[in-house]
């Protein structure tokens, strides 16, 4: 037992040494630094996966002595004022960096400012904050919409009619992805969006909405989506007995499973684009890099989790039933993202 303990520890030390020597020009040591995750909500599968990924990646990092602590805090209620209080508490607890998924892009700015003034590094991701002293790892939702049309243009050079499934009306993310899709259609004018429904990012809503609009539509060659709605759309097409278009999938397990079944049965081909909940681990490494003294630009972009025909099986295998596809980031990934932005 003692020997095993020793060997893991020496392995950890070797790992830490290798990391600091090989990958980064270690200008400062982060082994005594403490990083906290401030999270405002844990009530859906994406956020659950986000917290699990944080544990999976930061646990070994702490053991290896890369950082002294990496604790996750979730507010009891999803509210900006409560999260502001939480951030102020984290300052008092003496954390060196706070990794933040914010309840509001602006209402936490005061607390974030307090943190910066106290010398705490703040890295926001997914739900980002606008306070200039914080780092932002943002999702480019527009691009997420545009790449879907780009993929379809690659698959269907002659173009055709598209059906758009949108998210929840009035939400920023929905507007952004939709704007990206429309920008994509402008870029590839061989496509026309002939119908648009709100699927609320839920299978059942999407299925009902698509079933309702289908009879009024001409032949559809592709369905552009926002994630969470692909399976429902497929069900609606199947029930209506219409030829199956290329439906862009999201990251849910049922979407990937349906895709896999179709692929095995008829060689159905599509792609999936989403944001991996493991982006919390990317934010962790970025915070670690900043603490290490690395020059990091304030605005970074989250890479998409793209699943293709070839990577489908591997991704489906690691996705729990009822969960979402995920990827955990490494220090190298973080360095790559930082270098891309710089």
């Amino acid at each position, binding site marked *: 037992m003692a020997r095993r303990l020793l060997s893991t520890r020496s392995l950890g030390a070797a790992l830490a040494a290798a990391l600091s020597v090989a990958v980064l020009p270690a200008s400062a040591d982060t082994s005594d630094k403490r990083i906290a995750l401030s999270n405002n909500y844990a009530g859906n599968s994406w956020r659950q996966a986000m917290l699990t990924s944080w544990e999976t990646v930061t646990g070994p990092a702490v053991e290896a002595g890369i950082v002294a602590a990496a604790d996750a805090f979730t507010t009891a209620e999803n*509210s*900006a*004022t*409560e999260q502001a*209080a939480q951030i102020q508490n984290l300052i008092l*607890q003496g954390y060196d960096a706070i990794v933040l998924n914010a309840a*509001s892009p602006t*209402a936490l*700015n005061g607390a974030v400012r307090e943190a910066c003034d106290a010398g705490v590094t703040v890295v926001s991701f997914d739900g980002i904050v606008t306070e200039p002293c914080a780092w932002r790892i943002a999702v480019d939702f527009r691009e997420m919409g545009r790449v879907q049309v780009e993929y379809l243009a690659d698959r269907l050079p002659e173009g055709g009619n598209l059906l758009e499934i949108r998210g929840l009306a009035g939400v920023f993310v929905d507007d952004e992805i939709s704007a990206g899709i429309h920008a994509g259609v402008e870029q590839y004018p061989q496509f026309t969006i002939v119908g648009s429904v709100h699927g609320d990012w839920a299978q059942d809503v999407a299925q009902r909405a698509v079933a309702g609009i289908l009879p009024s539509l001409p032949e559809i060659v592709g369905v552009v989506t926002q994630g969470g709605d692909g399976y429902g759309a497929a069900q609606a097409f199947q029930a209506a007995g219409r030829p199956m278009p290329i439906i862009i999938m999201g990251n849910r397990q049922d979407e990937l499973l349906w895709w896999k079944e179709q692929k095995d049965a008829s060689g159905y081909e599509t792609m999936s684009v989403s944001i991996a909940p493991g982006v919390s681990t990317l934010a962790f490494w970025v915070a670690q890099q900043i603490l290490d003294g690395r020059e990091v630009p304030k605005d970074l972009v989250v890479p998409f989790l793209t699943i293709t025909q070839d990577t489908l099986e591997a991704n489906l295998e690691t996705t729990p039933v009822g969960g979402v596809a995920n990827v955990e980031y490494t220090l190298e990934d973080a360095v790559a993202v930082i270098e891309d932005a710089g």
Partner: protein
Amino acid sequence: MRPTADLIRLAVPFLALGALLAGVFWLQPRAMSYTGLNLLFNLAVPIALATLAQMFVIAVNDLDLSMGAFVSFAACVTATFLHDTPLLGALILFAAVAGYALLGVIIHLRGLPAIVVTLGMSFVWLGLAVMILPAPGGAAPGWLRALMTVRPPLLPMALAASILIALAAHLIMARSSLGVLIRGVGGNERSVARAGWSVLGAKAAAYALAGLFGVLAGMALVGLTTSADANIALRYTLLSIAGVILGGGEFVGGRVSAVGAVVGALTLTLAGSFLSFLRLSPDWQIGAQGAILILVLALRLGLDALERRGVRA
């Protein structure tokens, strides 16, 4: 000299606050400093103001379920109009206070249940807030930001502000004839009317004061957060009610205490920090917060019972 009933009533919230503060200091000695105290308490300032606003309504035996939405609305106006066009912003906030007074008048004249009216109004305030600020944003007026981040000597801003607003509200409620009248309406409306006072005026004044303190809460909040969000203060509805009761107030009878309400608001804020320092899982935090509330109320009921026995003896 035996302590009076009111003194005991006031002692409980102070005891609860002291106990929690001791716990926080023990868990996190870093909090025992000028900056530490400010970080612990600065978000309690808007909550204290909202609690006082709620107190004026509770004093006349009503309950305001729109407080959170109203503070959010005031915050949105502060971050937009008051910042861009100060005169128009001030006018809107003034109109909001007048609107609150009007609510009091309508509730009294038509004999409507305040809970229903204010619940309805909460959607109106929230709707207006979303119209003003469809996406989170806006900016705090410079003077307001400066006021909320000022570093006075000796006492941190959060505590100095709490003492000042508690004192101001105490003067209104306990030392002015208007305060006596408002509490009288809560205690026995009919006898106040028979004595020749205008119950309508008292209710309108109580609601106007609630509106005024609600507006101040929204402004203080924006001064701290630097910008607003239509949903920023929705929690304040329940927090403000809990704060009043925790501070020794009662739902009926005009028995409220301004100093107690402020201490109650500070206690509620501190309870959250205490639980977070304890590293309690968030799943348990809401329950634990409730447990602290029940504990304090049980303490008060126990003291009340003792006091009654003392009177009988």
